[in-house]
């Protein structure tokens, strides 16, 4: 039976097909306390989208909901698939990788073991080796440190490891939670350069940052999150020019 054209055309017409990630009316509570009050935003394939906001605005909660770490209300669709009730360990298989806040590097395991863990559910040896080579190509520093316990790496190297580990899974969407946290200004520049490089290789990036200045520079579009709701959105340059953003987040 030849594949009918209709479903494909239909998929192209559906709004979900436009956005790689579509978040609608997302609500989330911790022990009965609302952290998100109906957050909606979209991320198109190949974009860098950033969520900026102060401490406690709910940025991390949005990522936790996408990754299946916390039950949520509303809807999250990735490439048309509903992510409700998809457990965290299956999210990676769908093509989403999440670099958590504070990196989540396994300190007592070697760099190599850290990288291998990202392929925990896969059995294709050759493919895993190829992914390892690809990631080590992006982060040459990690190759030098493959056998070292990850806990002995510097903060910047650990962040590179956390990102490299996420890329081991061939993710199409990368969720980054505060990648600049605790890094020196020079290393922050470096990590943002890497983020742009990864994005150019075809990976969509959803970036959560307190460093609004850097985030708005690399982002194609941005959303401002305040006390659990989106209050502003626009392209990177638009928001950088917005007086409210300048006053609240850019300190200008």
């Amino acid at each position: 039976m030849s594949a009918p054209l209709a479903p494909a055309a239909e998929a192209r017409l559906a709004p979900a097909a436009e956005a790689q990630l579509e978040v609608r009316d997302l609500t989330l509570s911790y022990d009965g306390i609302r952290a998100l009050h109906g957050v909606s935003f979209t991320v198109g394939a190949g974009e860098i989208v950033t969520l900026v906001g102060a401490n406690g605005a709910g940025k991390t909660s949005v990522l936790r909901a996408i990754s299946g770490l916390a039950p949520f209300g509303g809807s999250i669709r990735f490439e048309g698939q509903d992510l409700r009730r998809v457990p965290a360990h299956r999210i990676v298989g769908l093509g989403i990788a999440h670099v958590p806040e504070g990196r989540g590097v396994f300190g007592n395991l070697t760099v190599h073991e850290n990288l291998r863990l990202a392929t925990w559910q896969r059995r294709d040896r050759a493919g895993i080796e190829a992914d390892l080579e690809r990631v080590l190509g992006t982060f040459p520093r990690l190759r030098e440190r493959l056998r070292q316990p990850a806990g002995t790496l510097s903060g910047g190297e650990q962040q590179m490891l956390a990102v490299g580990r996420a890329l081991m899974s061939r993710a199409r969407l990368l969720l980054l939670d505060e990648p600049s946290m605790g890094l020196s200004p020079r290393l922050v520049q470096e990590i943002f350069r890497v983020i742009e490089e990864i994005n150019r290789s075809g990976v969509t990036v959803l970036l959560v940052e307190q460093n609004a200045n850097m985030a708005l520079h690399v982002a194609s579009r941005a959303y401002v999150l305040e006390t659990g709701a989106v209050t502003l959105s626009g392209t990177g340059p638009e928001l950088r020019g917005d007086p409210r953003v300048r006053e609240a987040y850019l300190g200008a």
Partner: protein
Amino acid sequence: MSRPLRRRWDWLLEQRWLLPGLLVAGLALSFAIPEYGLLNRYVQMVLMYVGINIILAVSLNLVNGFMGEFSLAHAGFMAVGAYTAALLTMRVLPVAEFPALFPVAVLAGGLAAALLGLVVAVPSFKVRGDYLAIITLAFLMIVKSVIENIDAVGGPRGIPGIGKLTTLPWVFFWAVAVVWLVRNFVYSRYGRGVLAVREDEIASELMSVHTRRVKFLAFTLSSFGAGVAGALFAHLLQFISPRVFDVIKTTDILIMVYLGGIASIGGSILGATLYTVLLEILRPSTVAALLSWLPAVVFDPLNEHFIRHLGVWRMVIMPLALVLVMLYWPRGIMGLREYRGFIPRLDREAHRRGDPQGGRRDGAAHRD
């Protein structure tokens, strides 16, 4: 250790034949020792306790060391294995005619404990850390009081007159089998998952590790080991009662694990051996014999007030030892390190955890 000796020791540990050689020699000895009376019966019995304790320590290390949780339930699973196996050999299996059925009873003891382990794990692993410790402690108490209240298994009086079916070769066999099982688990995909869970559970989940399944499997396998050890224990002591499997028993196993070192199979083998031998030395008669050279003025009061009451003092000394080890020597003898013979060849290159010397052994320069 002097340098040349150290080098020779390292060379010895590198040898491919070491592990199979030790296994064959051990098996041959386990048959020869009782057959030809190479060691007296007392020493033979101590050896069997060493083997049983190795099983207990290695299996508990899976949960408390590799996974980084704190379970206090091990003696409870041991009780389940002991009672299951004892009831089987005394009432069901015709072991008198067919002694070869003994391993079936031991296996059944292990499986019964494993099954219960899974049942306990499902609700318990919703929590971590202190809460899990408390739940496992509660489980240990439940097992004890359930057994105490079933008259069919002797209630608080326990089961006397169990056949002495545990022999040195069987202990050797089961110790090797359990160590082999745990070793293969640790170096499997699941083992890696267990290590990741210890480090950071959320990050493991984000790395696609099915953390619930990993934890259940580790706990079930750990319980299986305790059940096997309990079955062997029952048929060595020939008498079991609920009191044998109390929190003191769990404490003993905990000390072996933390003394030997967390997340190390080799460490647990060492810890169990050292601890068992130490306990034997600390018996009143042994200590009295060892200290008999002291002048009577010193010896007599010492004997009167301390040595003769060592059985009670043990209750003080052993928990204190556990506290001291965890405070001042949290890594134990070989915490987070492993005897190289247990590490699969493919993993040795990658395996450098917490071993500052390790990175240089194969000549690779440590660049920094």
